[in-house]
């Protein structure tokens, strides 16, 4: 724990909040319908926005006739790209990456449409019903162009260009190298490889994207309530685009019903609603319906990876190479660029393993689909899927147990800090400890015996392991997305005690389900010495701190928590100084806890309220120079960030009759450093694994050859529900971390490990049939096809 804190004798007796499974304070309002989401805002006589979206995957817009819509009942305005052209500057998702083309972000399609679902016209009316009625009266004259439905088609000779100015459909290309892979592969005792794919996925937050722009005439100011997890970035981008200074543009993320990355980029609709609010001098509302949310929010994965790994005779991985093609969709997203997801695949592919040489090349290719963007785990679900499949293939080829081959290859405690080929540095983390703890918790040896018995009965029972490492709480030295110019390496906490003794702690981070109001208050309670219930956490409001970005990339416990700690210490020292006057004692003899300052070893104490009264109200008690305002602000930057790691082990069974996969057992052993709230950590793991199960077995956005989305409803886009998610066991390894408080980020890990663990378990289950797993999700249909093929092959062999 913090070294700058004097250990007091009473510490052992004092209950601490960090580490306690405190129930989430936000849940009372959220579970009783008293939360307030963007769509719950009720500004005066708000107008409603509806978007006409492209039904064409790729077409030139020859003309738009809005006359009938403008004359329709209740319609106040109809906007097209042309009619708002002078009201904003395009937002450019800039990056210093070489070989990258930044597609500009426009509120409405201009000149061309590039995917089905792209917003083309905005109708503003007195109700959403009337706005949608008017949409039907708009005539768009499209000249259809050839659709690009798959990444391979985009790079084929003679492929139509999605962005003519880019000169290519390859929007980015990058390569990482370490050592001589070709030479190492040549001398490898065993080489394994394959072509792996994770299909396109929807993040699918419970609350669809929703924006309310409240216009204030008096100051020509806008408050944008947005279901965003990056309100700070949205504020800065819209401010720049619209030429509105920050004190006339407030961006608030109120209660937000999940994101999983889908609300972690700037959206065209956010720009449009602010432009329209200003143009009309009115407040506006828009909430995506489910179809709009699925077909226009940023999507996930969509990568094909050709990979090969070489091992020496002892099962030590010597070399790894991969060629990745990412189907990034029609546009880059702001601020992360279209490189975010695919570049992370090659950045993280070596994972937690010591691999001698590496070559990882990636291309991000434009197709007629919505952009891919951040999704819980970013790049690592597929990099882990590929690396862990290769480990298992290597183990099989060498006759090693999958557990043993990982023991031989994981970065060991004496190797930290360990730099992998892409430049990522793993700080000291319990890689091996997680592996061993997961194996013990799942009863690995017993499970193998159970598998042997099951196989004797002809049952398809499999065990799968996945180990991974991720970078969390990233500081200013590392860009969250490659070459990105904005700072995502710091966060600010501003804590104050007002004249009533109440404590308000303001942050720029933006919880959208993480429970930060609880965990940040836990940290402050301990480090300020306050009562937990006296602390109110405000977050996600651009007016509260000068600069912030938001909550993403497993950063808020590390950055927000670090800022909370330091600001708490500063404020605690102020309290001590005031209390030393009031208690006539030396500051060093005062300790602060439970909302009061106490002279150590005595019953002399003052409450925060008494301290506040002395500073603010009762002007007779303190000398003038001692009346310090009871507030402190601290901007924390962990500089590099910190590693988090886990091992997942799954035991599954495939029913040969139905081809369904049943998960019998699921164990996660994770290292997120010092745990702030074990109940919240467990919840994050459970939720992450549930999403990983979705990626492994269920979820797939299916586009046909004309780039039309076929699985656009929740009937066709199948997500796991409660019965499909097994009871899981979570083991915590709390190894020390160098950042403030010793925290590591852990919001994404579940989603990173689960697809790989389940894929390996299915492959293990089906191995008696000679079946490999190289694509996710493994739907019953895919398993059926593989089993049919295996049956056909074995029949063929029997005939020979």
């Amino acid at each position: 724990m913090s070294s700058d804190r004097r250990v007091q004798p009473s510490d052992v007796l004092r209950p601490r909040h960090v580490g306690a499974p405190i129930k989430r304070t936000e849940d009372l309002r959220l579970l009783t319908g008293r939360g307030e989401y963007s769509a719950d805002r009720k500004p005066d006589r708000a107008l409603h926005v509806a978007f006409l979206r492209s039904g064409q995957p790729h077409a030139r817009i020859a003309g738009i006739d809005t006359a009938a819509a403008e004359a329709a009942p209740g319609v106040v305005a109809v906007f097209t790209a042309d009619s708002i052209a002078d009201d904003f500057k395009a937002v450019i998702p800039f990056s210093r990456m070489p070989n990258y083309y930044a597609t500009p972000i426009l509120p409405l399609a201009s000149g061309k449409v590039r995917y089905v679902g792209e917003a083309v016209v905005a109708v503003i009316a007195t109700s959403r019903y009337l706005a949608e009625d008017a949409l039907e009266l708009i005539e768009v004259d499209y000249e259809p162009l050839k659709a690009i439905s798959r990444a391979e088609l985009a790079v084929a000779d003679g492929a139509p260009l999605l962005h003519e100015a880019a000169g290519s459909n390859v929007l980015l290309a990058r390569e990482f190298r370490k050592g001589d892979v070709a030479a190492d592969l040549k001398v490898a005792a065993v080489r394994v490889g394959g072509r792996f794919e994770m299909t396109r996925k929807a993040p699918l937050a419970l609350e669809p994207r929703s924006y309310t722009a409240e216009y204030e005439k008096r100051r020509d100011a806008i408050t944008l309530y947005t279901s965003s997890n990056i309100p700070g970035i949205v504020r800065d981008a819209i401010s720049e685009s619209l030429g509105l200074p920050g004190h006339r543009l407030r961006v608030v993320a109120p209660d937000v019903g999940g994101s999983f990355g889908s609300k972690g980029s700037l959206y065209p609709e956010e720009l449009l609603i602010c432009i329209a609010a200003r143009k009309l001098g009115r407040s506006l509302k828009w909430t995506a319906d489910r179809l709009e949310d699925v077909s226009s929010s940023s999507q996930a994965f969509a990568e094909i990876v050709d990979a090969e790994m070489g091992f020496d005779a002892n099962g030590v991985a010597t070399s790894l190479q991969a060629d990745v093609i990412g189907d990034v969709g029609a546009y880059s997203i702001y601020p992360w660029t279209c490189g975010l997801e695919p570049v992370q695949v090659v950045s993280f592919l070596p994972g937690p393993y010591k691999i001698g040489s590496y070559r990882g090349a990636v291309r991000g290719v434009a197709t007629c689909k919505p952009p891919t963007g951040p999704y819980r785990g970013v790049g690592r679900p597929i990099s882990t899927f590929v690396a862990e499949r290769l480990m298992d293939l290597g183990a099989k080829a060498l006759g090693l147990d999958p557990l043993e081959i990982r023991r031989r290859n994981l970065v060991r405690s004496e190797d930290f800090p360990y730099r992998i080929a892409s430049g990522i540095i793993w700080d000291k983390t319990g890689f091996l400890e997680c592996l061993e703890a997961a194996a013990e918790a799942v009863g690995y040896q017993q499970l193998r015996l159970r598998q042997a018995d099951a196989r004797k009965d002809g049952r398809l029972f499999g065990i799968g392991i996945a180990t991974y490492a991720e970078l969390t709480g990233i500081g200013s030295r590392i860009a969250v997305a490659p070459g990105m110019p904005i700072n995502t390496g710091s966060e600010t906490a501003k804590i104050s005690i007002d004249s009533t003794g109440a404590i308000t702690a303001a942050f720029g981070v933006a919880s959208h389900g993480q429970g930060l109001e609880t965990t940040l208050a836990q940290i402050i309670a301990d480090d300020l010495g306050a009562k937990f219930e006296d602390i109110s956490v405000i977050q996600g409001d651009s007016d509260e701190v000068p600069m912030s970005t938001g909550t993403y990339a497993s950063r808020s416990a590390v950055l927000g928590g670090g800022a909370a700690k330091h600001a708490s210490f500063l404020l605690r020292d102020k309290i001590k100084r005031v209390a030393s006057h009031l208690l006539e004692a030396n500051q060093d003899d005062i300790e602060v806890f439970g909302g009061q300052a106490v002279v150590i070893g005595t019953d002399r104490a003052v409450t925060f309220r008494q301290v506040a009264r002395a500073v603010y109200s009762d002007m007779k008690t303190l000398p003038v120079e001692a009346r310090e305002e009871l507030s402190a602000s601290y901007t924390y930057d962990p500089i590099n960030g910190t590693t988090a790691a886990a091992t997942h082990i799954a035991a599954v069974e495939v029913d040969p009759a139905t081809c369904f996969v049943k998960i019998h057992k699921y164990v996660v052993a994770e290292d997120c450093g010092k745990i702030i709230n074990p109940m919240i950590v467990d919840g994050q793991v459970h939720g992450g694994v549930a999403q990983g199960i979705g990626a492994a077995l269920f979820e797939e956005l299916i586009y046909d050859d004309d780039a039309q989305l076929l699985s656009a409803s929740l009937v066709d886009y199948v997500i796991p529900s409660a019965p499909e998610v097994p009871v899981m066991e979570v083991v915590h390894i709390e190894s020390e971390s160098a950042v403030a408080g010793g925290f590591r980020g852990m919001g994404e890990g579940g989603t990173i490990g689960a697809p790989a663990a389940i894929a390996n378990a299915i492959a293990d289950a089906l191995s008696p049939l000679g079946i490999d797993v190289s694509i996710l999700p493994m739907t019953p249909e895919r398993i059926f096809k593989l089993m049919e093929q295996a049956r056909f092959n074995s029949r063929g062999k029997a005939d020979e």
Partner: protein
Amino acid sequence: MKPARFEYVAPASVDAAVETLLAANGEGKLLAGGQSLLPLLNFRMARPAVLVDLNGIKELSFIELRGESVVIGALTRHREIEHSPLIASRLPVMSAAMRHVAHLAIRNRGTIGGSLSHADPAAELPMMAMFYAARLTVQGPAGRRTIAAKDFFVDALTNCLEPEEIVVEIEFPIPQHDGWVFEEVARRFGDFALASIAVSIRRGQSGIEDARVAAMGVADTPLRLEDVERRLCEIEIDVRMPDRFCEWVRSSVSPNSDLHASGEYRKHLLGELARRALKTALAAKGDRR
């Protein structure tokens, strides 16, 4: 995703509802539980001029024994059928099938008349209507008529009703059987079936005296497999029977491929379910699963 404009009428009797439909001139649509219709309205895939809400017609909601049949009023909710002791004792296959009808919230609202009229080929109640050889009483401007289930389902999401006709009640003749099974596989519990089979038999001295077999999720309408039923009664009961049954069932369907499953997989699944179902039905004389 808001519906286009419509008039809303809530008649208090079937006669008044028929009158309203007649007045709507083919532009009327009946609202019962609304579990399929409301999404269609919101997507503007259905755009009736008049929405005729049947929910106020209380006499359409009942389950009663009438002679050798169970008769169910068209406005009876799935939840009432699911929990009816009368259905459980006389139409046990239907009772078992009801658990697979979507989710609790949907079963609270959805009605049997609505489900049959919607004619989804992967829904349980249309399949049960085929399985039990139900007779639907419908009322129109010319009065009432009765339609056999096999004539009612014309195609996927298409029934044989005239625009002014309303399903009033459904009669399910009670079969005298002693072994039965309902099997269904869906991606998730409560989803539309990838394949489902219902089997019910009466065993005699030497073999099966009478059999009922129905399947769904494998064609544009639910299927009653009468050929398979006949063949079951023609052979002796032995260990090979489930395998032969599986083959007969497989060869009597040719399902189409869609987003969720290929035709080959649905056929495989139905065959596997058939084998399992007959084993259970033969083993569990009078017993239920």
